[in-house]
């Protein structure tokens, strides 16, 4: 038996392990959390993943309970507890980051169909309430006291051609990102005008610092991860 084949076997085991680890729900949650943290706009709600994560959290809580009652050694219990805490942390942080983005850009999200469709059902309720509350607040404090023609909370006056008072996130900020595969055909949005037609490529597992706008669709399709 040549040593080469043993090494080959070991490295393919390592690959399998990597592949397994990278698709556990905790890893997926971590990835969703990192993307959400780094992206300037709100991303699609990972509905299925979050449902599974919640079920797993419940399971973990039951496991910890059970271990405590049968008197398992404290070290083992604390390991299960740490696992539970870590998952809870990721879930809380993921939801909280999204809620903060909603609070910041509520009017924009409410009126942009693409963004509205990325929210979970509960987030949609929350956004509706938020926008109603803030709109009412602005109307009562300011807008109702102004002359007619200037009472819109979205436009400066009836003469405005678009909703010029709605804050939006800046999509041209730069983000650190990485792709798992070799990607070609990326159009850079921020180069000099005559260079904009030059297409950009990304090599797998290399870190890049790019304008978010240029890679927006690739983040949405899951081909690029943000860090």
């Amino acid at each position, binding site marked *: 038996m040549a040593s080469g084949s043993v090494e080959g076997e070991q490295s393919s085991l390592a690959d399998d392990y990597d592949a397994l680890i990278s698709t556990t729900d905790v890893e997926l949650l971590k990835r969703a959390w990192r993307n959400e943290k780094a992206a300037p706009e709100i991303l699609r709600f990972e509905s299925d993943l979050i449902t599974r994560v*919640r079920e797993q959290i419940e399971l973990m809580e039951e496991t910890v309970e059970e271990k405590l009652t049968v008197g398992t050694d404290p070290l083992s219990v604390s390991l299960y507890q740490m696992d539970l805490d870590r998952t*809870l*942390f990721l*879930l*809380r*942080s993921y*939801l*909280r980051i999204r*809620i903060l983005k909603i*609070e*910041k850009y509520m009017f924009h999200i409410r009126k942009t169909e693409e963004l509205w469709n990325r929210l979970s059902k*509960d*987030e949609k*309720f*929350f956004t509706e*309430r*938020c926008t109603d*509350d*803030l709109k009412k*607040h*602005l109307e*009562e*404090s*300011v*807008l109702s*006291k*102004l*002359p007619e023609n*200037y009472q819109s*909370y979205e436009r*400066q*006056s009836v*003469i405005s051609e678009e909703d010029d*008072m709605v804050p939006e996130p800046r999509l041209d900020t730069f983000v650190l990102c990485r792709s798992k595969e070799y990607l070609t055909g990326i159009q850079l949005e921020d180069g000099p005008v005559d260079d904009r037609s030059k297409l950009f490529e990304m090599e797998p597992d290399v870190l890049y610092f790019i304008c978010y706008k240029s890679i927006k669709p690739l983040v949405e399709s899951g081909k690029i991860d943000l860090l």
Partner: protein
Amino acid sequence: MYGRKASQLVKEFASGEKGQLTPFNNDLFDQVVAECSQHHGELQSLIRKMQEKGLDVQTARNADHYGALIHLFSIVRNKRCLTAYVYNRAETIRNLLWKIGPVIPKEIEENLNHWEEEYFKKHSAALKSYMSKVLVDLTVTL
């Protein structure tokens, strides 16, 4: 007039410590609102003047037109400043809610005006409702 007081209002907010709320400046606020009505009156009288002269208000470009434009810009500038004042204070209020929870300490409550207190309560309720639906307390220190 012409946006000067409005810019004072905004500067007052900007110069405050981030995350802290100064008392709502009702006086200055009301003065800016009153100026909007004044500008509006002047604007309308200039438009009337143009109409009396038989000019097409949409296309004529005389002194009255430019005067009216200045008044228009003043109103819109005032509106932006007033809205920015209220909007940014509302943002600070929401951040406070995250930091200290749904009960406002007396020292901070004194600095809010009546509508801001209402807004704080409403937003607090909205957050609470969301958190109870997702069954996760998001205000736990992470």
